[in-house]
């Protein structure tokens, strides 16, 4: 067993864990933050995307131990005082989700896209940048709309 300490959604957490514990297991099993999902076992689907030190990563292929000292944000950490993040709001407003399983990873990736590519995203860029996130329900049409709308809204909320 090894000790890890990190900040998750603004709160300091530490625990003794099996060294092979993945970040997604640590979040789901130790911290009961079950909004981060596991949809595949080959790091392809993106349901597990969280932010570590401001960057989107796939938590299913990241050891929790390597995040020692890091600041982690999950889907549960986006809304503040009952106010949704503009990207969350955009997904709801544009019907960017159906079963909701891929949604947390989709939203975390979308915010990361905006952080990297800015607020004025064309359809082609959004579609290319979503390559690492699979959705089986929406056909992506409304996800693309949501990301574009969320990106604009994030500019306004700065």
């Amino acid at each position, binding site marked *: 067993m090894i000790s890890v300490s990190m900040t998750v959604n603004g709160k300091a957490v530490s625990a003794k864990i*099996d060294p*092979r514990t993945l970040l997604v297991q640590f979040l*789901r099993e130790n911290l009961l*933050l*079950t*909004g*981060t*999902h*596991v*949809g*595949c*076992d*080959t790091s*392809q*689907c993106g*349901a597990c995307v969280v932010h570590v030190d401001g960057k989107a990563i796939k938590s299913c292929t990241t050891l929790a131990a390597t995040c020692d000292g890091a600041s982690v944000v*999950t*889907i*549960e950490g*986006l*809304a503040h005082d009952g106010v*949704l993040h503009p990207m*969350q709001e955009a*997904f*709801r*407003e544009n*019907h960017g*989700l*159906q*079963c*909701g*399983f*891929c*949604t*947390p990873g989709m*939203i975390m990736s979308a915010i990361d896209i905006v952080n990297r590519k800015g607020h004025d995203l064309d*359809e082609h860029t*959004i*579609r*290319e940048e*979503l*390559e690492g*996130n*699979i*959705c*089986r*329900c*929406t*056909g*992506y*049409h*409304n*996800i*693309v709309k949501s990301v574009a709308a969320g990106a604009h809204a994030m500019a306004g909320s700065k």
Partner: protein
Amino acid sequence: MSATGIGAPVRRKEDFRFITGKGQYTDDINRPGQTHAAFLRSPHAHATIKKLDISEAQKADGVIAVLTGEDLAKDNVGGLICGWMIHSKDGSPMKAGSHPALAQGKVRYVGDHIAVVIAETLAQARDAVEKIHVDYELLKPVIDMAHATDSGSPVIHDVAPHNQVYDWHLGDKGATEAAFANAKHVTKLDIVNNRLIPNAMEPRAAIGDYDSGQDAFTLYTTSQNPHVARLVLSAFIGIAPEHKLRVIAPDVGGGFGSKIFIYAEETVCVWAAKKVGRPVKWTGDRTEAFLADAHGRDHITHAEMAMDDKGHILGLRVKTKANLGAYLSTFSSCVPTYLYAPLLSGQYNIPAIYVEVEGIYTNTAPVDAYRGAGRPEATFVIERMVEVAAREMGQDPAAFRRKNFIKSFPHQTPVIMAYDTGNYGASMDLALEMADYKNFGKRKRDSAKKGMLRGIGFSAYIEACGIAPSAAVGSLGAGVGLWESAEVRVNPVGTVEVLTGSHSHGQGHETTFAQLVSDRLGIGIDQVAIVHGDTDKVQFGMGTYGSRSGAVGMSAISKALDKVVAKAKKVAAYALEASEGDIEFKDGRFSVAGTDRSLAFGEVALQAYIAHKFSGQDLEPGLKEGAFYDPTNFTFPSGVHICELEIDPDTGVTRIDRWTAVDDFGNIINPMIVEGQVHGGIAQGVGQALLEGAHYDANGQLVTASYMDYCMPRADDLPNFDIGITTTPCTTNPLGIKGCGEAGAIAAPPAVINAITDALGHEQIAMPASPQAVWRAAQKSLHKLAAE
């Protein structure tokens, strides 16, 4: 139309929990004292188990139990069942081999379940699985469906010595032969409908829990139909009587059919919970989903269509082999028979049809319903046939279709179905306009100037949804009725709970069902809660599949609402001291006709519960009504999809340039949700046509068992979709709804392939039309062009 009533694009009530990470999927649930299960699965496609040694695994760290098929047999746990009886041409019943939840002496596909380890942690369970030693005697596997029934093929189930499940037919053979005898032109085509793996994003999961004090079980599971799961686990598998078995299907992350079925894993978890005296949790990983979720499609077909000299269709004959895999899954037998052949008339007036279907065992994962289930396979056959026939006869494919469209309703096809209503020409008109068909030739020439091949493809699909009349499906072999139930509970303050037998796993029932209630009772949707997915809360219901929740599930709610309003009028009459006949109900208020005396819906609800204004002899207190709705017919959504695409002959890359979808779903409750369903369906259909294909090698190894090898549609594989709507309300249910859940997946594949073959100028391309396949086919086109 009110802001939250029928027809309004209301934002979804369920979204808040999903976008904030507060959804509760099965794997998010943890029970006190929970243990973890891991399955040993066969790495071989076909083998007998000579020896199964679990002794080392039993001694491994953290292991609580290692259970095998022998333990199941000792406890008299029954096998998994197939609930739809199909009879062969000769009247003999289908040959259903036994399907134990854990293998008993033989394994029949890679992924077949052999044993389960239950341990304190998942890692310990997985480690111990490694310590089970199996001595296999390998048998030759049967993989190629085309030759599975050849004499000398290895036998998968003793009950089916030639690996044939059934040899079934439908239609009038004599009349069809006669139609062909009079034909001036016959179009012939060999068609393969590729095997798909459903891939709902949430892998299947189950938690079995046993309460020894109550002698009762609870199963949390990823199910589209928890009551059906309970019925099968109880009545057939024999876990516990229904009143001692609670099945909860919480938030479910997509189903597409694959979560209808009752699988080995949940059976084992719920049974094992009592054996180990603690909750048992299993969560599938993606590889397990690839191996052991029921697959979809997998047909090979030869079809022939007879036309007169003008291109009127005279007859259709179809011969199909359907791969059912190694075992008959829950509804597998009906998919290539009654969900397939009756749809082969499409939107067309075809006087004579004859269909033969052979169901076949192979050493591959079981095949069952996947989004559309039989109807995509039928639509692919008929829409490829009409497209090719039009081309062969030198006619415009849109005009050829229009000429053969059914134009008067009701219409009885020669293959069971009686279409109640539709206006196929209207959908075609709108689709042609939206797709700017008249300028396609110019766009094709512009592409050609860039060295690109542009093509356009049509799909005028029909589906039979809202399944379906219980007596009718019973006469065709179904083991269950396909009605739906609802209970509307009005609380004393006027808020409403609707308990529905439907199940939502992405469809947005919490919103659309609430819209219906809002519309009818004149209360806001925030005053309505939709309760589903728990057999202890909800009366028996049949679940969600076959685009039935609107047409059947909401019709049941509608019937229950009628009863609520009727009862509330009685209460209002007492409360307002008027005669019942004078009470009017409008916009949420009960009023006495011709007066200003009225009560709001909530006030009447309170009167119903305090019961001060009437005596118990005259009227029962309370306001709660239930209904079971059994439809009188299937519903028949239809539409026209047009795919326009561009192929780069140098790379074989196909880019969909525009997609036009015009659908007639009857009346629509929430157009935003309906469009979302269409988008998702098209994506799955395009996936089938261009990207997806399950592939077993000759030894039965699934070589497309991860997202590295099974190509899922991603955002950059798809275009935006142009959606249009035409409406002919369904005539056989109270809401006029036809259903929309499967349309895209049914319509899309032939539209794509018709467009690719149009671009290529020949018909030799199979699904998935991957860049490699398209490149090869494009080289043929270039040679052909050069030769001309």
